[in-house]
């Protein structure tokens, strides 16, 4: 048997202090660490949310800040109002059309980025630009692209013979993208698609790359071709993540007022008016807080629905 090891002489160690170790106690430390964030969120999100709903049932204005109960009056006023009706319809249609396009294009683009090719990193960076850039600033860029008479888009259309005298689409020199109702709506949706597509794509891409290699290899060995694998393996496995991408996009598009504010201000004739922008116009620009709030609360059902679906998705992810 080997000789025992003698430890080198040590300096006396400090005796363990036996006070009640406050910073060791999880029951104490947990709430202390959590509370600041929770208090902050309750005070600056929870309380405003309640006030927002209270405003909607009151007659509060910038001039008269006292909240007097008026029941459903604001909603009745809104409901019969043409601008509101257009805004609600536009919000729903813009969101739906945008999301339908984004899901189709996002899946295609994610499949492209999931394959290996030269310059993929650069492609990914360029495709991400619209999402990474402040919305207000890129909306200004698009505004410039659409605005006559120096519209770059119109120039291209003239060059390919679509616009201008004798053009196969229109004889005008410009398409007046933001001045004609249907073209303005098209422009708003186009910019929304352009902005949200990158987010959906990278979420879907994360889902695609998470499909285990062995599942794909097994499918290869079983003789499944690209389309068969896509339809039977990749897309079904991707379904939960598609829902996540869809839900985020829905929230971002439905609650956005920036693109409309900068490009059209809801014009022409409320053709591009949307709920959040109308709420802003009434609440901030006209100073009618109650009316603005009663419009804004129409965002609530959609957001609540999205939140419920998200909770369900997260729960499933947790238990799987």
């Amino acid at each position: 048997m080997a000789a025992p090891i003698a430890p080198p002489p040590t300096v006396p160690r400090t005796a363990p202090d036996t006070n009640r170790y406050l910073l060791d106690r999880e029951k104490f430390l947990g709430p202390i660490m959590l509370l600041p964030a929770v208090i902050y969120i309750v005070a600056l999100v929870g309380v405003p949310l309640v006030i927002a709903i209270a405003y909607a049932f009151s007659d509060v204005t910038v001039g008269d800040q006292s909240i007097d109960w008026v029941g459903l009056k604001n909603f009745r006023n809104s409901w019969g109002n043409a601008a509101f009706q257009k805004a609600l319809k536009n919000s729903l249609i813009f969101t739906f059309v945008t999301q339908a396009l984004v899901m189709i294009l996002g899946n295609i683009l994610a499949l492209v980025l999931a394959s290996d090719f030269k310059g993929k990193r650069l492609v990914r960076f360029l495709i991400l630009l619209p999402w990474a850039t402040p919305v207000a600033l890129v909306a200004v860029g698009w505004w410039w692209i659409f605005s006559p008479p120096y519209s770059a888009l119109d120039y291209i259309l003239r060059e390919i013979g679509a616009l201008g005298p004798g053009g196969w689409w229109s004889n005008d020199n410009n398409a007046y993208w933001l001045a004609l109702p249907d073209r303005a709506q098209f422009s708003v949706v186009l910019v929304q698609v352009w902005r949200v597509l990158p987010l959906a794509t990278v979420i879907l891409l994360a889902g695609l790359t998470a499909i285990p290699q062995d599942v794909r290899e097994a499918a290869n060995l079983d003789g499944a071709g690209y389309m068969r694998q896509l339809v039977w393996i990749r897309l079904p496995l991707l379904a939960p993540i598609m829902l996540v991408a869809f839900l985020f996009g829905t929230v971002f598009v439905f609650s956005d007022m920036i693109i409309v504010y900068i490009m059209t201000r809801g014009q022409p004739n409320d053709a591009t008016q949307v709920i959040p922008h109308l709420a802003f116009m009434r609440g901030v620009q006209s100073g009618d807080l109650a009316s603005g709030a009663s419009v804004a609360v129409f965002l609530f059902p959609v957001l609540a629905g999205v939140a419920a679906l998200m909770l369900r998705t997260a729960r499933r992810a947790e238990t799987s």
Partner: protein
Amino acid sequence: MATVETRKLTKEFTGHAGEGVFAVNGIDLAIKDGEFMVLLGPSGCGKTTLLRMIGGLEHPTSGDILIGDHIVNDLPPRARSIAMVFQSYALYPHLNVYNNIAFPLRAAKMPREEQKKQIEWAAGILGIEELLKRKPRQLSGGQRQRVALARAIVRHPNVFLLDEPLSNLDAQRRASARDELQQFQRRIGTTTIYVTHDQVEAMGMGDRIAVIDKGSIRQIGTPEEIYDEPADTFVATFLGSPPMNLVKRDDEILGFRPEHFFPASQAGSTDDLVPLQFTPLREEYLGAERLVYGDVDGVRAIARFPSTTHLEIEAGHKVDFAVRRQHLKRFDIETGLRRYGAG
């Protein structure tokens, strides 16, 4: 150095349906000063929870933990004068080996000069002087284990707690690590509690073994006691590879080790033989030995022979086998507990 004792130690967790689940259920354990105690059991038996309670990482639901005759229930880990080596070794990935070993010394606010002396001492014992500048990710599994041990001994703890420290090593490296670790413990003489699910480690290293199942201790004893005189059918089948054969006979269960089960024709004297009918089905040749799988009274049984033994048996045909009486263990058919005395 210190003794470690647990008294009626219990840990209850809340299960999925909100019901209480006992991870550790009233364990009494007394570990002597300088002893190498192995806690052995299948995964989920509560052995790691027991170790973590001794280390202060879990708070017991009831019962007491004593280290060096002091109740330490309410002391945090740092006040217990223990060192622990985790299964993963839990080296701090952002610190090099020197700073990993220095970590507990800095916590104790030891002067730098003294730290250096202690670290050199610990590194010397474990032969890792050359590795002091490396980061953990640049080390092999065996080297990581040594660093973890160096970090454990550097502040001269009263007790070592080791949680399956060899399970991340490959089989070859594990055998030599086992040897090193035991040598090291013998030389340094610190009370050690070692958790494992590997019976070979338990048998090879422990002064004593506590076999644990479902939160309770089934048997405590030296490796010989545990192997030769198992207290119940769980211990009998958990230790030994292949495990003890268990055959129902009348109102009790007979247990016998595969190496004690042989053809009656090969027995020298016959006066203490218990005959059993064995139907061999399949044979495994393992180099130094061969295992014959078959059944006795319709129950699976295994016989083990040195490769040098010549056997004349044919698959599917009954053969007269036997076990010597002193090798036959009897267990209660209801409780599985050992029945002692003549039968």
